């Protein structure tokens, strides 16, 4: 039951998209567009920036000011846009590999500055576009093309990473929670500061097939069965939390925003002249 028509935000001539059957990326993108629609943002005052990977193809499908950049660097390019045009709403659409591996440095530093970007991570726990290699959000023991007998590395908790780095807003949802997701994105966009959204999405073709969830429905069930809302999470023991993950608004602590501080500094220096 789509509440508003989001087709005006799409470059319909660029469709159909390249995503595989069962991919959750369309649900994530739809949520972002619904949030923009709800906020009635001026289409020409929105910039969407992406990096490299399946998720990053989004920038080509949406009718805003869009910039498709290099692997890992979307947040750095977006920082430049925001500094040049602080009046614009700058949204970064990225993936877990893009944002947390090759681009991890940009993520933590943009969060540290609390610059007004909304970063939406399409987190499918895998490098989908290159065929299913393990990423920084592949959980221990998950199977990946580069970890055929199970992943030995720990996974990032991306919201914790963003919060600890200085983000003023961090939330997590899933593609199963399709009604919650746009509300969280909406709040993220409204927050004046660095807003981070970790969206658990499904890659049945690579991640799912290797991890006994070959159908899109399997992966949605996984999300339904293992996500716990923040209220419930706070009452759970560590044992109960095992294998589960928390969703909802995890951190919302408004703080001075970088481009505001920058503008204030300029004004002050001009006054003193």
């Amino acid at each position, binding site marked *: 039951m789509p509440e508003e028509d989001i087709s005006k935000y799409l470059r319909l001539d660029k469709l159909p998209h390249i995503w595989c059957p069962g991919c959750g990326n369309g649900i994530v993108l739809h949520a972002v567009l619904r949030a923009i629609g709800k906020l009635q943002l001026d289409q020409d005052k929105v910039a969407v920036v992406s990096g490299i990977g399946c998720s990053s193809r989004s920038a080509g499908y949406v009718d805003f000011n869009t910039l498709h950049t290099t692997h890992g660097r979307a947040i750095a390019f977006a920082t430049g846009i925001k500094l040049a045009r602080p009046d614009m709403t700058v949204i970064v659409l990225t993936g877990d590999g893009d944002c947390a*591996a*090759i681009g991890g440095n940009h993520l933590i530093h943009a969060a540290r500055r609390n610059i007004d970007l909304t970063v939406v991570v399409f987190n499918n726990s895998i490098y989908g576009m*290159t065929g299913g*290699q*393990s990423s920084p959000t592949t959980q221990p023991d998950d199977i990946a*093309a*580069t*970890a*055929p007998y199970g992943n030995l590395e720990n996974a990032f908790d991306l919201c914790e990473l963003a919060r600890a780095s200085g983000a003023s807003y961090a939330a997590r949802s899933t593609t199963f929670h399709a009604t919650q997701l746009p509300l969280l994105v909406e709040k993220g966009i409204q927050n004046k500061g660095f807003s981070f959204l970790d969206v658990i999405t499904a890659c049945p073709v690579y991640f799912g097939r290797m991890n006994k969830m070959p159908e899109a429905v399997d992966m949605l069930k996984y999300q339904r069965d293992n996500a716990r809302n923040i209220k419930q999470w706070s009452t759970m023991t560590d044992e109960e939390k095992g294998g589960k993950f928390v969703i909802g608004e995890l951190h919302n602590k408004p703080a001075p925003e970088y481009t505001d501080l920058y503008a204030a500094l300029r004004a002050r220096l001009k006054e003193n002249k």
Partner: protein
Amino acid sequence: MPTAAKTGNEAMAEAMRQINPDVVAAYPITPATEIVMIFASFVADGLVDTEYIPVESEHSAMSACVGASAAGARVMTGTSSQGLALMYEILPIASALRLPIIMSDVNRALSGPINIHCDHSDTMAARDFGWIQIFSENAQEAYDNLIQAVRIAEHPKVKLPTMVTTDGFIISHCLEKIEILEDAQAKQFVGERKAEVSLLDVEHPVTLGALDLPDYYFEHKLQVAEAMRQASQHILEIAKEFEQQTGRKYDLIENYKLDDAEIAIVALGSTAGTTKAVVDELRSKGVKAGLLKIRVFRPFPAEALAKALANVAAVAVLDRADSYSAQGGPVYTEISSALYGKTKAPKLINYVYGLGGRDVTIDDIRGVFSDLQKIDKMPTFNYFGVRE
């Protein structure tokens, strides 16, 4: 000798399995991902003894390779395009420290605009980093070159990192029948790395990568240049040894029907194969056409090229990378320099072609040969296959 159907990427992964390097560090990138992904399954299945590190970026991959190689390990990696570009900072460090790292690079256009298909812009931009660069025409050559690269890189008179390239998708993803060495034969051919110094040799501690100011930096760079010049003869020695094992002959360049050729094309990589087909066709019609394929681009085989082209009347140099306002593409500028001042030299023209994977057809190559037959009317710098 065993034969198998392999894509270029599979052929390179197979070579890596037989080489059994001590350390592999890599990051996924289309169209090179498969090489290391297949290799990762060899690691997981215990078919190799390699420490495999799936790092978080190519910058980290090459950095890890440098560390491992400095510790005395035999080290390999694979990448392409933007991945290679992200390694650029580390590439000259590998050569300056004389670390014989071996890389498979699948040639792919550099962004932007974003593109995943073949051209040589990634490799050509890396040509001045002190790496040996070997191009392959097909999957067989990719396999053969990678096996030989180990010996070349680690040769005590060379000690330079080496990249073996294939053309993205055209070679990397096309299935061909190739001959493969027996495992034992390959193992014997590549031998063991004997590093002169190793960070793990705690009895003889060394410092690598120390600050090198105007007092010595220049001499160290001169040593890299000398080693690169020296490398040519050792590449030939190793090729001879490889030929004894396999019957497959390699040189710095390959001359195809060039001896009595009046018109010829110079090409690298898969385009050489397309050109051979056209040369055969023209020969059957009595046109004396030929091909010079450059296998080794660094060290640049200037003497061999000048000699091979001396008696050809008209030559077209094909560049699958542009150098934007330079005097031709990177291959052309090298060749025109190599021929400068020679009393016997062909008339030369240049084509930039095939950028971003633009298809190179038999017709395109026919067109180039037909241009060569009226070379006096041709401008020096040309493009083919592009809408203007």
